[in-house]
């Protein structure tokens, strides 16, 4: 029997994560693209950490941080009276950390590609900083935004180790597709695992294809 709940949770998680990351990563990537000192390279390295760390390491530290007496968990409890581990909110926090480099790096590259020329030109026309950002940087860096959005969404869909560690595998709440697949494999229910896996494979392929297609079309628009 195929249950669609893991699919909806996965899509909701990936969508929320991608939107939050867009908001968080834009100023961060902008700052990283513009400043070059020891501190910014330090932050750059920190941002890239999820790329190289095994998800179980991230998941383990997140589990510790989300605990009621942990750094994040205690703050959250003070604010809302609730808990973070085993909740959808906890998964969102984990996914934001996990997918952070997938949003920051394309944006940073795009911002660096804009260069200072167009900005200076806009400044001489008396455009304010916000005006410059909205009317000069955003259109020029739109490929970066698209890549950041699609990659962080897709990477969150494929997330496994982190959600396994902090999610608690609760059907209908925190059981995402990848965990559901693992569950069915361990239970020797290969048929269901296969159906979910083929779906995920097709999705991943469609996303990457779309991304490359759009990228190429944008490339044609902007000489």
């Amino acid at each position, binding site marked *: 029997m195929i249950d669609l709940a893991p699919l909806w949770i996965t899509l909701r998680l990936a969508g929320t994560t991608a939107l939050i990351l867009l908001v968080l990563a834009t100023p961060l990537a902008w700052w990283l693209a513009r400043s070059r000192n020891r501190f910014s390279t330090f932050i750059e390295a920190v941002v890239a950490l999820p790329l190289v760390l095994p998800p179980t390491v991230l998941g383990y530290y997140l589990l510790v941080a989300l605990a*009621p007496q*942990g750094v994040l968990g205690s703050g959250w409890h003070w604010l809302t009276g609730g808990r973070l*581990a085993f909740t959808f909110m906890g998964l969102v926090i984990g996914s934001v950390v996990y997918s952070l480099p997938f949003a920051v790096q394309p944006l940073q590259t795009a911002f660096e590609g804009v260069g200072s020329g167009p900005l200076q030109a806009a400044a001489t026309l008396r455009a304010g900083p916000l005006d410059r950002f909205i009317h000069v940087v955003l259109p020029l860096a739109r490929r970066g935004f698209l890549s950041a959005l699609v990659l962080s969404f897709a990477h969150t869909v494929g997330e496994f180790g982190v959600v*396994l*560690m902090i999610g*608690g595998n*609760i059907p209908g709440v925190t059981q995402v597709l990848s*965990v559901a697949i693992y569950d069915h494999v361990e239970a*020797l229910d290969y048929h269901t695992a296969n159906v979910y896996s083929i779906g995920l494979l097709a999705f991943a392929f469609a996303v990457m294809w779309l991304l490359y297609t759009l990228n190429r079309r944008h490339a044609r628009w902007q000489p």
Partner: protein
Amino acid sequence: MNHARLRTILISLIVLPGLFSWVSARAGDIDVAVAANFTSTIQTVAKRFETETGNRVSLSFGSTGKLYAQIVHGAPYDIFLAADKRRPRLLEANGEAVAGSRFTYARGRLALWQPGAKTAKPGRATLEQADFAHLAIANPKTAPYGLAAQQTLQHLGLWKQLEPRLVYGENIAQTYQFVASGNAPLGFVALSQVMTTHSPKTSYWVIPENLHAPIEQQAVLLKRANHNATAAAFLNYLKTSTEARRIIEAAGYSLP
């Protein structure tokens, strides 16, 4: 360097490693795949066996499901100590294991663990009061300890009431971690886990074995070790030696 010498070197480079692997795989050495929950217990048992017999036992650990998949795909193990009886039975049925070699080497004991318990020892009343946000159990679909926890809750008539608060570890180790990290205030874990971590006796309740079906951990002799005397001796040691049985019992298991 002349041609003949080069050839000699090349040939020895090819032949020597094979020779070494042949030497290291003496008849007295056996490879045993062990369910992760039994890690420290089998290490003690194997060390005893090695000193008593002079044979060498090399141990590989993993989840029962993963080890089973490896064995089915030809992993070179002589013995499989699973955390359930389902996988050994399947191996026997498929001819991957020697028929008739299967036996229960230990029965898992379940414990309700509440490390932060300030007042009384946890017990049935703790579950009935239900003044906790989460109760951690292993996944009943995949983990024998999870199934036993579910049966216990059903037996106590608390399953329906507590189901919304359950968080599922994908195995008993993760379930333990959920409780140990403080994210779940209490959970059903293996007695062997709380015993090896020196939890105070007041923090856990050993679940009576009549509340759930036995958590039988079964061993099986794999096909490639059909005529391996050391492998047979090790299984026999596990089954009958008073020393091995004492170690297993002291680690928080009961004996068949």
